[in-house]
């Protein structure tokens, strides 16, 4: 296909897309003019029957918790895929030794004082903010996923401020792996407890408490916390696999010369 024909074909496609998109956009209700019944119902149900003031969290972790379970396992499986693809060809004998190996494997300039100060200053703030977002999902915008990704930036800040050895010290790979897997399982576990109580899977079985308090909304907060651990762990595993790939010392037998 010549560039000319390709361009003409593109113009046809683009014109079609613009027409259909404009048609669709013109048919939308005006900004802020919501018409469907579901949003109103769910806004009412979240506060009245679930005692959660953040309707998004009530939908994610209670009313449509099964969808969130699926999404969480999409993340879990993709990270597992990354780990499988980037697995080490030579298995290190000892984690500390491997970390030392990695640290000498690249001539990394020590970070400047400005970078170190900024990153260290952000570590405490990020931990606090991440924990706040994870535990207050039922009250204010946020929840397990958002808090989890915020918490996952903490080891990254530590890596930027120090080196990969410190990263492995504060987030040992085995601990993160185990935590991630256990938290993913705990989501299903919470669903199965409801089944054991002769309720449908993932029914909110805990006491709902007083609306607006941190201990309100039953299982929403519990699921939010396990999701936070799973998501945070998944992102740490993802990033440390990528980091290991960059810093990994080339095994002896793969080198160009002895």
């Amino acid at each position, binding site marked *: 296909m010549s560039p000319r024909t390709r361009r003409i074909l593109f113009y046809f496609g683009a014109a079609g897309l613009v027409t259909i998109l404009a048609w669709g956009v013109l048919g939308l209700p005006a900004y802020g003019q919501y018409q469907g019944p579901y949003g109103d119902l769910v806004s009412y149900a979240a506060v009245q029957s679930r005692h959660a003031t953040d309707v998004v969290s009530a939908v994610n972790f209670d009313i449509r918790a099964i969808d969130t379970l699926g999404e969480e396992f999409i993340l879990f499986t993709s990270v597992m895929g990354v780990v499988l693809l980037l697995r080490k060809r030579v298995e290190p004998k000892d984690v500390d030794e491997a970390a030392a190996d990695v640290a000498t494997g690249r001539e990394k300039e020590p970070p400047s004082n400005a970078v170190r100060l900024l990153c260290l200053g952000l570590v405490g703030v990020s931990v606090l903010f991440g924990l706040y977002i994870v535990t207050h999902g039922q009250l204010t915008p946020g929840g397990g996923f958002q808090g989890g990704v915020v918490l996952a930036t903490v080891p990254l800040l530590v890596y930027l401020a120090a080196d990969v050895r410190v990263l492995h010290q504060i987030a040992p790979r085995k601990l993160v792996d185990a935590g991630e897997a256990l938290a993913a399982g705990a989501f299903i576990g919470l669903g199965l407890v409801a089944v054991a109580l002769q309720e449908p899977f993932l029914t909110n079985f805990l006491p709902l408490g007083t609306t607006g308090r941190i201990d309100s909304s039953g299982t929403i907060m519990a699921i939010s916390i396990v999701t936070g651990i799973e998501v945070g762990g998944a992102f740490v595993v993802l990033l440390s696999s990528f980091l290991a*790939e960059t810093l990994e010392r080339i095994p002896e037998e793969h080198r160009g010369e002895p």
Partner: protein
Amino acid sequence: MTSNDAISATLRIAVLLLVAVGATGVVCTREPLSQAVTLSFYGLLLTTMFFVFQAPDVALSQIVVGAVVSPLMILLTLSRIRRGKARETNPSQPERS
């Protein structure tokens, strides 16, 4: 009330235009290393957009995933590829990136 509406409408239009310009900028950046930087900036623009459109929880995920994690994964991948290339062209110094 009307002036507030006008301000928020202007803000929404402005942020949508910025996102459109930013996305075009990312597409027009052909060099992968520079593209990682423009992508990160575009992630920040999307965060602002979600915030202006009253989706703070989406904004929170976006600021980490869009502005930090995906550009970082691209950077780490580029670094790995370059080290591999450096090793091919200069096998006597395998560790230099």
